[in-house]
């Protein structure tokens, strides 16, 4: 029984990482209607930034805010320099650009840091360091960090003037511009916030998956599954879906012999197909309004 509980907690912590990256995807989609295939690679890049800072001797909890600041700036810069040029140029152009960005960032990271697999320190102290109890403890740490981040996002969007302006741009960019809002800046900031959220996902998952340029590929698939279940629109459903996928993946990998470690990645795909066929006839991906 204790073993099952541990599996569930570990599933939830993996799910929290998927939920964070999925939330980044949903944020970008709500801001300018683009599905950002490069979201995972931007998170990987942020993780390398964090690793570089740790290598330079910074303590983890000092490296984290610096990494977040760098990630937010980088996300905003990508929107301003690359995405702004293709916005409104049709869905295919946007998909091609974000896929291109994904490949480019991946290759650039390989060029700078090589494709060697590196270990990434676990930020959570191993207080109860006997056997499985330690991994349970760090899983709770991951859950805690993601929960704090989501609460912060919620408070930011609901209770600050900047959050209000960002929600207004999401609801109606034309009316927002007419009310004196610099819509372009808000879109950049939206991409920045999404990149920051993705960075947290990357840093939290790095101790488990190890650091390498392809580390976020699998996570992106799970995050996509969660984002699709949330209609690329609804953050609450997206987060719930991310957690559920994490638990389903972990339990299926452990308890269903046929699935095992190799077929785990199929679980979210099955979930997507099942949900989409049940919802058939209803548009799942809603517009940005």
């Amino acid at each position, binding site marked *: 029984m204790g073993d099952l509980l541990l599996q569930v907690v570990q599933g939830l912590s993996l799910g929290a990482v998927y939920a964070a990256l999925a939330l980044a995807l949903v944020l970008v989609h709500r801001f300018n209607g683009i599905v950002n295939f490069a979201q995972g690679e931007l998170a990987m890049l942020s993780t390398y930034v964090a690793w570089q800072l740790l290598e330079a001797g910074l303590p983890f909890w000092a490296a984290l805010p610096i990494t977040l600041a760098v990630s937010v700036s980088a996300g905003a810069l990508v929107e301003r320099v690359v995405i702004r040029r293709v916005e409104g140029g049709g869905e295919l152009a946007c998909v091609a650009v974000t896929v291109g960005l994904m490949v480019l960032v991946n290759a650039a990271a390989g060029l700078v840091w090589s494709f060697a697999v590196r270990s990434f320190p676990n930020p959570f102290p191993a207080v109860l360091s006997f056997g499985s109890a330690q991994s349970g403890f760090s899983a709770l740490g991951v859950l805690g960090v993601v929960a704090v981040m989501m609460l912060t996002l919620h408070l930011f969007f609901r209770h600050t003037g900047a959050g209000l302006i960002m929600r207004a741009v999401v*609801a109606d960019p034309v009316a927002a511009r007419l009310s004196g*809002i610099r819509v372009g*800046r808000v879109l950049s900031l939206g991409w920045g916030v999404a990149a920051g959220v993705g960075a947290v996902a990357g840093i939290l998952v790095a101790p488990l998956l190890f650091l390498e340029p392809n580390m976020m590929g699998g996570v992106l698939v799970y995050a996509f599954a969660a984002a699709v279940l949330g209609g690329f629109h609804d953050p609450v459903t997206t987060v719930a879906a991310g957690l559920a996928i994490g638990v389903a993946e972990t339990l299926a990998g452990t308890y269903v012999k046929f699935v095992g470690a190799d077929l785990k990645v199929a679980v979210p795909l099955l979930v997507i197909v099942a949900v989409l066929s049940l919802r058939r006839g209803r548009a799942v991906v809603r517009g940005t309004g």
Partner: protein
Amino acid sequence: MTLEIGGLTVRFGGVTALTEVDLTVRPGELVGLIGPNGAGKTTLFDCLTRRVEPAAGRMRFEGAGLEGTAPHEVAGRGIARTFQQLGLFSGLSVRENVMVGAHRHGRSGFGAAAIRPGRVRREERAIRRIADEALDRVGLLPLADHPAVHLPHGTLKRVEIARALAVRPRLLLLDEPISGLGHDEIADFARLVRDMHLTSDIMIIVVEHHMEFVMNLCERIVCLDSGRKIADGASGRVRRDPRVIDAYLGVVPWASPAGRP
């Protein structure tokens, strides 16, 4: 301190939407802008709010040209507008919608929120106060916390007016404000616009098809037809102008109770 438009011409591809339109509006004036569909009324508003680039002509507001103004700076110049279709932010409450209109009265940028939270909080309180004043003006303060959806159309139109007022404009452009409203709502709306007109120096231009509404409300009427100004003067004179009657295909639009030709 006037709005002066001279020789304004707009072309969309081969179509000329506005041809050398002249118009001067003084503070405190309430002007009705009429004309058949496609006459260029909304295009004129789009020029003033910098959504459409004119091919020729000049627009001066309070002594300075509007041509170099970016769309997001229009509100800062003191110009606000409502849309034909409701342009409200649907995920936001009534008060939040109006606060977006008032936000330019805050000076702090995004970065300041992290560095000087005290000053930002004071500004946000000020923005909230401006929003509540505007809501009070249109009689919607009791509904401030309601989401800006699932309310009667006339109420949502008032929210849009409140958001425009929160900009503290000196020129207010109302694009078909009463389309889709019921009879009683139209009377209420006319009272609201007349009240704004009588209690402030604000310039108001109303585009409207509902002739009874616009003729009763505005002392001055401007009529556009196929992008040209064909009449400009006191409402009593414009309604008898043969060119205006012609523009509406000989139908005297204000003869029918529904008002629409």
